[in-house]
Structure formats: C-alpha cells, structure tokens
C-alpha cells in the first residue's frame, strides 16, 4: 500500500528548504499591502477569465480535448520524445537530455561558455526558475538578464516570483517605481504605467541589441514537426527569439504535444485561462534553424528533474497535464489571501501544492498538500481537467504513510497520529462510539458556558482561537431515535 522512494535533499524547485506553509502563512496574511494587491489582482483576472470562457459554447469539449491529448502524450511519452528529438535534429537543432537540475545547468552553462558570452537575455521561464539556472550561471560568471517586465522587476528587487504568470502580482505601481529608481539609476519617475514601461524598455532595448545568447523555456513542443512554441504578451520574448545568434530552450519533458494540429486546442485553452484574453498578443513558433533568419544555432534541453517519478504515479500523473496557465492560482481562496511566497516553492498555489511535493518528495514539502480547504474551485477552472483536490488528498495519504513508516517512535507518538488512530478505533465499534459520545458530554462540562465552548486545549485550540464551539447536546440523535422507537 505504500511505496516511498526517499528523495535526496532537493536542490531545485523549492525556494526554502522544507517549506512549512502553515508557518509562512500568518506573516503573509498580516501584510496588508500584499492582501490588497493580491485581492485586487486575482479578482480582476478571474472575472476576465470567466468572461472570455463563457463566450465559447464548446469550452467543456475543449477542456476534454486538452485533457485527452495530454493523457495520450503522457502514455506515449517515450516514443514522442524520440520523435521530437529526430524532428529537431532534422531541422538543424541540437537536442540535450538532462536528468536533473544540475545536469541541465551544466549543459546550458557549457553552451554559453563555448560562445564566450558573459551575459545572456532570458524569456520568462518557470522551468529555468525550477532548476535555479540564474544562480548557476552567476556561479560561472555569467549574468542572466530577465526581459519579461514583471520578471525584471522581481530580479531587480532581488525577490522570488509569487505567481507563475504574473511574477510581480504582489507589487503595486508605487513599489515598482521605487525599485526602478533604486536599481536603474533613474532620477525622476512617476508611478504611471506608461512611464514605468518606458524605463524598462530603454534598459532592455540595449540588452536585446548587444547580447549574443538567449535562453527560453517552452510552452509547447510538437513531436511531429520539432516546432517549439512560446506564448507571451509583451513581445520581449519575440526579441529574444529573433535577435541573438544562439538560442537555448529548456523544457520539461511533459510539455510535448503530438501534432501541429493540437495547437487548435491549446492556443484556445491557454490564453483564455491565463490572462483572460481570446488570443495572446505574441505567439512565436520556430522549427530548428532557418538560414539567414533568426538564431543560427538552436539547442533544446529536455528536462526530467523528477517528472518520470510523477508519471509513474497513477493518481499523481495528471499533474503533468499542466500547461502553466495559472487559472487555479487566481481562483484559489487560499492563494488569494496568502500570495505565492508562503508556499516556499517556485510553483505556488494549487498546482504548486500538488506538483512540488511530487517533484521533490513528500518528505520535503509535506505541508503543501494541506494548504487547501479542498473547495474544488481549481478543478472547475483547470483547462486540462487536473483533479487537483483528488491529487491533494492522495498526497496527504502519502505524507502520513511516509511519516508512519519511516518516522519511527516520534511519528508514532505525534499527538495528531495518536488522536486519529484512537478515533479510528472508536469509530470501528458501535459500543465504543456510543461510549465516546457519553464521555464527551460529561468531559465537556468544565469547558462549557451557555451551550458553547470558548477555549479548547491542544490541537483543537486552533478552532477556539477565533470561533466558539457548540457543546454536545444532552441527547444524541441515536438516543432520540431509541426513545422514539420505544415510545
């Protein structure tokens, strides 16, 4: 029933080692600026999404198609990847395979060094965040310049992203103005979006025109043709994909789609789910190298980094359907209030709560599957129908089984473990259950006041910190039923 592969201490994906959501959340909840920014941003974007989704009469069919294509791809991932490799090579590109973050970083650093570049420009990419590429490049003396506006803000602020699509969602205009003035040497600047964008534009334009190597992630790659796709809003990605001489794209092995025709489904699902737009402003597609047009050297790095382990899990594997749209973050009542940093992971929100523990092992991110009230809103909006609540519950089971099987005597004596084991015994016998009901009625008397309990001890104190607890009434339902049947 339990099959744990203990994973070594993760070097990637996690921002903090062993994040504890419940310990991080209170500070985030107390940050009033964050609460306001997050509330405003998530409510706006989810209203936009709801609006454009409601326009399509075949949205449910599209979701089902998206799910089915992804399921097919995952089922045939080995063949599909080999097909992709052959297609990319045929079109003049190079393909590299990386088992983990360290290997991917070694490959990429080596490629940049081979061109004697000291600086690279980057397209916003979660996969490169996952492997902590910027830090690895910095260790090799290479500066990575983020060109996505929000990613640039975060990089200049020295922070981590808090949203997979809108990394600076926790920042408002006034905060961005201060960051630009502090880091870009601007003397006078207002907090008007136009002015802020103009400063970033001047800064980035210089980089676009002077940098030889660009690094990107990938939204999709087509096994049939070897075509890679980047979907974006600003056009800065298009600059990176066309101006430099060398392009290195890193993608998780699950980003494949079988055929070019499948774009029909995903290019409808993705923009509507992510930015709430019918179509995103820039969709770039390229196949290997075209002489005289765009980068003349193209490298595709295929990253595993735990994904094949996710694939091996029958319930968990649907996580790999994810197209990183972030609709689940925007709809999540937990994420809306805590923001992304409380998750301590590159992937926050509902998708992060299921993906991160699977990539690094539940023993390293065991608090994340509990960072949800299981309200199910994420599943409803997911464009590829990932049943996030189901996976959360499955992972909670993994967390407990791992503790029980490998935590020794300390885990066995953990108050929660003892309480649940005892309760399970009580519920397994009618007489034990009815005796517990009677004991509860007697036991509660010192705590109660006019039908309510205002303070409970131990684990249950979390309840009475903000809520009263009703007392157990004189007569349980079954006692009433007995009395009624006898009468």
């Amino acid at each position, binding site marked *: *029933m339990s099959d744990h592969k203990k994973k070594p201490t993760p070097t990637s994906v996690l921002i903090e080692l062993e994040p504890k*959501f*419940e310990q991080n959340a*209170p500070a985030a*909840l107390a940050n009033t600026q964050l609460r306001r920014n997050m509330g405003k941003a998530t409510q706006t974007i989810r209203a936009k999404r709801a609006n454009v989704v409601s326009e399509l009469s075949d949205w449910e069919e599209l979701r089902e198609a998206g799910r089915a294509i992804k399921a097919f791809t995952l089922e045939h991932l080995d063949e599909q990847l080999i097909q992709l490799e052959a297609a990319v090579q045929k079109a003049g590109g190079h393909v590299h395979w990386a088992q983990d973050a360290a290997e991917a970083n070694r490959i990429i650093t080596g490629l940049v060094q081979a061109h004697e570049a000291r600086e690279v420009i980057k397209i916003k990419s979660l996969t490169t965040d996952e492997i902590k590429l910027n830090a690895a490049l910095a260790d090799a003396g290479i500066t990575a310049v983020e060109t996505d506006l929000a990613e640039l803000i975060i990089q200049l602020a020295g922070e981590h992203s808090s949203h997979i699509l809108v990394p600076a969602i926790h920042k408002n205009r006034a905060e961005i103005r201060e960051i630009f003035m502090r880091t870009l040497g601007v003397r006078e600047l207002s907090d008007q979006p136009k002015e802020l964008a103009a400063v970033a534009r001047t800064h980035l334009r210089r980089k676009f025109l002077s940098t030889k190597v660009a690094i990107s992630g990938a939204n999709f790659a087509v096994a049939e043709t070897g075509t890679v796709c980047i979907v974006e809003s600003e056009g800065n990605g298009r600059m990176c994909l066309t101006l430099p001489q060398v392009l290195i794209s890193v993608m998780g092995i699950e980003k494949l789609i079988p055929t070019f025709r499948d774009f029909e489904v995903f290019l409808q699902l993705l923009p509507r789910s992510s930015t709430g737009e019918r179509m995103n402003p820039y969709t770039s597609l390229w196949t290997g190298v075209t002489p005289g047009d765009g980068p003349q050297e193209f490298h595709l790095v295929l990253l595993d980094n735990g994904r094949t382990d996710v694939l091996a899990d029958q*319930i968990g594997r649907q996580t790999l359907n994810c197209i990183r749209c972030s609709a689940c973050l925007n709809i999540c*009542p*937990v994420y809306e*209030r*805590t923001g992304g940093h409380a998750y301590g992971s590159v992937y926050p929100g509902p998708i992060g709560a299921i993906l991160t523990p699977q990539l690094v092992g539940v023993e390293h991110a065991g608090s994340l599957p*509990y*960072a*949800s*009230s*299981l*309200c*199910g*809103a994420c*599943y*409803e909006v997911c464009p590829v129908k990932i049943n996030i609540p*189901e996976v959360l*519950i499955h992972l*909670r*089971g*993994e967390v*407990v*089984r791992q503790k*029980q099987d490998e935590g020794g005597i300390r885990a066995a004596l953990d108050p929660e*473990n003892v309480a*649940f*084991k005892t*309760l*399970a015994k*009580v*519920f*397994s*016998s*009618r007489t034990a*259950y009815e005796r517990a*009901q009677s004991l*509860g009625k007697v036991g509660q008397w010192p705590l109660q006041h006019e039908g309510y309990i*205002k303070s409970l001890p131990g*684990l*249950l104190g*979390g*309840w009475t*910190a*903000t*809520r*009263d*607890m*009703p007392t*157990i*009434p004189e*007569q*349980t*339902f*079954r*006692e009433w*039923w007995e009395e009624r049947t006898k009468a």
Partner: protein
Amino acid sequence: MHISLFITCFNDTLFPQAGRATVQLLERLGHTVEFRREQTCCGQMHFNTGYQREAIPLVQRFVDVFRDAEVIVAPSASCVGMVRDLYPMAAQLAGDPALIREVESLRPRVFELTEFLVKQLQVEDVGAYFPHRVTYHPTCHSLRVLRVGDAPLRLLRAVRGLDLVTLPDAEQCCGFGGTFAIKNADTSMAMLGDKLRAVRETRAEVCVAADNSCLMHIGGALHRQRAGVRTMHIAEILATTEGDA
C-alpha cells in the same frame, strides 16, 4: 419510499436537531425512514487528513451497514461527497476487489437530502413555513462535488413566509475545509472573515446551508462576534410548519 438515514457522526453527536428534522420531513412527505444503529463515521476526516489506512475499515463498515438499503439519505453534502467521490479511491487503495465492487454498487444509492428531494422525489414545496429573513450559503461539497445546483434554493423559495436574500460571493469557500480549519487556522480565518462580512451584508437572521460542518465554522464565529445572525441546517427550516415557527 423506504429510506435509510445516514445521520453522519457529526450530526448525530453535535447537531441531532438536523437529524430529527430530516426524519420529520421525510415522514411528513409520506416516506418510511429507518435508522441503522451500527453506523458510525464514513471516514472522511481520516481520509482527507491523510490517515487513509485508518479510513479503510470505516469504508468497509459503511458498506456492511448499508449494503442492502434501497436508498441512503444524509443531511450532509460533504459526507455524501466522501461516499460518492472518494470511496472508489479508498477501495482502490485497499486493493480489495470485493470492496471496489460493493462501493460501485452502493454509490448510486447515496443522496444528500436536498438533491434527493428535488432530483429524486421531484418535490420543491415541502409544506414548510418559516417567517424569517434567510440567506443561503452553498457549501463547496454540495456545489462542486455533488453538483446539487439550485436544488436547495428551489426548496427555500417554496417555503411560506421565508424572505430569501442572495448571499454576495456565495460560491466562495467559507474556509472550513475539515482539519484545514485547525492546521491552517489563520488562513481559514482570513477566508471566514470575508464570508462573515457577506453574511452580515444580507441583514439576514439566519444563514442556512446543507452542511453543519461549514455552519459550525461560520456559526462559531458569528456567535463569538455576537453578530446577531444564527446558523441552521436546511432540514430544520424545511421541517418547520405553521405552529412550530
């Protein structure tokens, strides 16, 4: 119809009035209600908190108790959600083909009270009288797991004297989430705060729902704040007739 009541341990112990109301209502509509005393807990709390090995005997127990029941009705969307939505996963985890088969045969016979009334019995007017201002909170499990739709609202609209007020942002989770309310008490409270504001904005006397678990959470905070709003299970309102209210 011969209905077997699945009272749920939570209602049995803490909210027996919801169980009594369910029995009175179904009998008033002309049905026979039985109560199988061997029932205890469906195992939801264990399963959803991760104590899934411990939940499996409770799943087996539920199947044993209700195996031959014609229909099983519970005044709780989340416990019915456990049986309908998660028992298959529990049976798979147990790796017991007999349990998998039995769960499959049982699932289509288990109903939450309001969906049973509206979708199975096709009743909307149950003859209730409740002259109060009421707002309805659709709980996550009734809305997104069982998909009861507007069944509870149809029932409430047919109650004589009842002034039904729409709850703003009704579909937002109240923040209960079982052990989430304790493990992540701060986040739970942040969610509850917005729900309480919405409830109070309606100026209702009563906040009603199909789950006493969420209502204990909402009602516990309303009581702490002396908000002047009480919570009631929908069965209690539907059972009330002229003369009781």
